[in-house]
């Protein structure tokens, strides 16, 4: 990888299934055809070479056998020259110390061949390559045959070198034509590969499309299986998976709806006895003056807890309305700064809060819901944070924002993502607080009902900062579906 020379010769690796099938088919075909052509060419070539060599050697001995009876024996130099002349060029004839040679090729005779001729007394050949030219070396003793057929070496040896360039050219031609034939096989291989790739790729594409539709939420998506191969089995399996997914999703939704309805029913059923209880405690409040200190403490506790219970039930019913999608928005033209100031004034918080409000910002929003949100945020800041608590109202081109900042210890990073969860308490040791545990959840639902959002972060100076952003034009009240879709992905823990 680090060497540039390697990366320069690296071929692009085929990625698509089609390309890979194509390459595999082509490779297999070329290899198979090459192997067949090569083995054919090789055996034909070696047969050609062998027959040529045999012919050369045969012709060599035939010439010796023809001229030998006319040679004087023991041979003199003239006899050796005659024999050599009869055998053509590139020939050596020896007898003892006598020697007759002609041609450059006579120097090619190897010692190995000479030794073989002397030991075996047979006609021997050896192929050699000198300077790129292939030569056939032929060597033979001339035998002395007795009338009864007994053969003894006469001492005469004849050697010759024969050029094999012509045969090599023929063999090379054979090889070339074999390679050409192998290359021809590539064309049908590519066509076959394309056909096979089509057969494989179509079901794969269909499956992929189905998987995409399933992933994007269309649980009715299915692929019709074709044939009985592995791809068809895969298709059937994917279909079964989609079916069971659909069934479990439906069951989950049903259970969720039932749970919500149950919560709504419970809170509704609790409201009537609670009204009675509230009325009773109010009567008790008027009569605490006649009681002893112990009794008064008990009554005060009962009153506090009853109020908390009432608040919890109200919040639960509000959450149920959000869950059921029946929460409705009643927007009206409102002066934002005035609405916030009115909210703080009604709770006598103006003195404890540092309000910085941009005046004259008018937006359409649900005053009651804004009041709920601001009261919750400021209440939390006063209760859990530390002064000074700052409320900042500002206007942006496309939205308005209400920021509530305190200077308390702030919210740890780990739990910041959970503060909007229902019944979430940042400090587990301090479980009993006046709040219902639903305040922030309801505040965020209210913000989202407006098409806005409620977020929390920790500014550099410490403390916690909640930012309520509302669009200048809120969503219409009759569009609960859109509101739900905007909410669901960000709260998977709700189930």
């Amino acid at each position, binding site marked *: 990888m680090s060497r540039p020379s390697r990366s320069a010769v690296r071929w692009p690796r085929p990625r698509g299934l089609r390309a890979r099938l194509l390459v595999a088919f082509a490779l297999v075909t070329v290899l198979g055809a090459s192997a067949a052509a090569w083995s054919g060419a090789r055996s034909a070539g070696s047969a050609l070479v062998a027959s040529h060599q045999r012919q050369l050697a045969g012709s060599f001995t035939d010439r010796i056998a023809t001229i030998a009876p006319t040679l004087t024996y023991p041979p003199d130099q003239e006899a050796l020259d005659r024999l050599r002349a009869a055998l053509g060029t590139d020939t050596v004839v020896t007898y003892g110390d006598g020697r007759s040679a002609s041609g450059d090729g006579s120097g090619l005779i190897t010692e190995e061949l000479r030794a*073989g001729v002397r030991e075996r007394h047979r006609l021997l050949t050896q192929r050699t390559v000198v300077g790129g030219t292939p030569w056939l070396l032929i060597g033979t003793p001339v035998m002395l045959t007795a009338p009864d057929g007994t053969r003894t070496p006469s001492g005469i040896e004849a050697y010759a070198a024969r050029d094999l360039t012509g045969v090599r050219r023929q063999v090379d031609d054979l090889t070339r034509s074999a390679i050409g034939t192998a290359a021809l096989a590539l064309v049908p291989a590519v066509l076959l590969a394309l056909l096979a790739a089509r057969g494989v790729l179509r079901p794969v594409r269909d499956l992929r499309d189905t998987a995409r539709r399933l992933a994007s939420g269309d649980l009715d998506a299915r692929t019709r299986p074709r044939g009985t191969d592995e791809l068809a089995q895969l298709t059937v399996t994917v279909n079964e998976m989609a079916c069971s997914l659909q069934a479990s999703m439906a069951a989950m939704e049903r259970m969720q709806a039932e749970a919500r309805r149950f919560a709504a029913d419970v809170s509704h059923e609790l409201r009537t006895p609670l009204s009675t209880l509230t009325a009773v405690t109010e009567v008790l409040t008027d009569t605490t003056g006649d009681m002893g200190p112990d009794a008064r403490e008990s009554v005060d506790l009962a009153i506090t807890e009853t109020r908390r219970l009432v608040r919890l039930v109200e919040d639960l019913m509000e959450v149920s309305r959000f869950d059921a999608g029946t929460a409705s928005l009643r927007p009206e033209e409102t002066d934002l700064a005035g609405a916030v100031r009115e909210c703080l004034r009604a709770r006598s918080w103006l003195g404890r809060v540092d309000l910085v409000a941009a005046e004259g910002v008018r937006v359409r929003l649900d005053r009651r819901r804004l009041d709920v949100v601001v009261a919750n945020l400021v209440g939390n800041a006063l209760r859990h944070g530390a002064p000074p608590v700052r409320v900042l109202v500002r206007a942006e081109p496309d939205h308005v924002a209400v920021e509530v900042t305190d200077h308390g210890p702030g919210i740890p990073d780990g739990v910041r993502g959970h503060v909007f969860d229902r019944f979430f308490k940042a400090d587990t040791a301090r479980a009993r607080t006046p709040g219902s545990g639903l305040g922030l959840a309801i505040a965020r639902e209210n913000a989202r009902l407006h098409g806005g959002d409620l977020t929390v972060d920790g500014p550099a100076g410490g403390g916690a900062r909640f930012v309520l952003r509302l669009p200048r034009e809120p969503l219409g009240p009759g569009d609960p579906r859109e509101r739900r879709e905007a909410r669901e992905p960000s709260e998977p823990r709700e189930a």
Partner: protein
Amino acid sequence: MGRAGRAEERAGDLTGRAGGRRWHGSGTARRARWGWWVAVAVLLAGCSLRPSGVVDEGEAPTGVAPGVTLYFVDAAGELRPQLRRTGRLGTVHEAVTLLLEGPGGSGMRTRIATTDVTRVAVTATDGTIELLVPLAAADVTPLGIDQIVCTALAAHVQAGGARGTAVRIRFTLPGPGPDARRTCPLTG
């Protein structure tokens, strides 16, 4: 073509994410690639003529001899070979011609009638040598026929001819029997 191209593009898109796992550089792949090249090189090299060892191509040629072997009859009446030192083997024709000229001063005898005409016609066919001798069948005893047959066969075998060859002798005046194919009783 347009459809196929689009499909390939989409298929590439589908598998492209897994393409991050590369194995070009791994040792196994590199060894495998070297293996391919070696195989191709061997294939190509196997096609041309390479040097070889010493190969046996058969019988060595023969045919040289210090003289001609002629067959005469010794004092005991037995067929005997005699080397006539002519310096070379010569042909069947020359051998039989020399035989017809007689043993000379060697002390051997011949059972072939002397004749002034020693011209012999030799016709070699497959497995048989046919001799046309300038003699009448009556001029030659059976031993004399063996002399001719053995001499012709010896020259034939010494020149590299097959040992199983037979000889048929035709006379200018044929004898009563058929022209039999004969072999030499000494050399089989």
